């Protein structure tokens, strides 16, 4: 499956899960901030991805969980270097360039973009 084919399918998944219009979905769109996803929507997206691509997504693989509650990874609302290293390992599909300039914990959601999902699925299908 090509990158474009995966992108098209991911787009369909997001339109169905989030009730957004086609043209709102761009590679750089942030799932939470730009597309309005709430916490339960991530489970919905995960289920729909599993079905659309016939893959299994283990808990915490697409987006690490409980990072903010771990003092090794977050200190005073800022993700620590150890936290960033962990996130990089667990989210190789995300772009960290902007996040690393100001790694506030509330900016973590910006790591989860449409393109990150597409790259994640590409990795799963290899």
């Amino acid at each position: 499956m090509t990158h474009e084919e995966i992108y098209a399918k991911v787009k369909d998944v997001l339109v169905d899960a989030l009730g957004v219009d086609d043209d709102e979905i761009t590679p750089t769109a942030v799932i939470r901030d730009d597309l309005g996803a709430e916490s339960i929507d991530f489970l919905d997206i995960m289920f729909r991805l599993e079905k659309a691509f016939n893959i299994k997504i283990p808990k915490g693989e697409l987006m690490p969980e409980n990072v903010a509650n771990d003092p090794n990874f977050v200190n005073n609302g800022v993700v620590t270097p150890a936290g960033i290293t962990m996130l990089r390992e667990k989210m190789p599909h995300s772009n960290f360039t902007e996040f690393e300039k100001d790694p506030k914990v509330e900016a973590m959601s910006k790591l989860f973009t449409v393109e990150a999902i597409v790259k994640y699925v590409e990795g799963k299908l290899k």
Partner: protein
Amino acid sequence: MRWIWIDKFIEFTPRTSAIALKNCTLAEEHLHDLYPDFPIVPHSLIVEGMAQTAGILVGEARQFKEKVILAKVGRATFHRLVRPGDTILFKATVEQLNEQGASITGRVELLNQNADGLNVGSGSADMLVAEIELMFSHIDQNMSGVKFPEHNFVFTEQFTELLANYRLDSTITL
């Protein structure tokens, strides 16, 4: 006391699908509340019936150990009204189920019985009341450390008895 919105299960295949039945009657006060002189079953309560049917299906899959919460109504499309005297079937099918929750597709159909009490209409397009997509969350698995009461406040005896009665599978004689 919880408001039970289904009367009984007529099919139950663990982790896969369930069908529950509800009789709708003029004796239910809420049928009169929406439109004066034109009683109908409110759509919101049809969604609730599907949620109860599907919720018990999802809960049973893990022996009612998880607190199963309706987290999202993905879609609800209605095709016809339900009126007093109608019997409706809530047909729930598990699409996805894992440790975090479940997604369900549901169909609500009118049961159309002939004089012998046989179902002659269910399944046909004109008997279709609604198509509903639901998402359930196992909240203890999804709330990033937020604690809930230990006892399972979702599945009260009223709910689990519905399933127990179906499994009893015998005629109760006087």
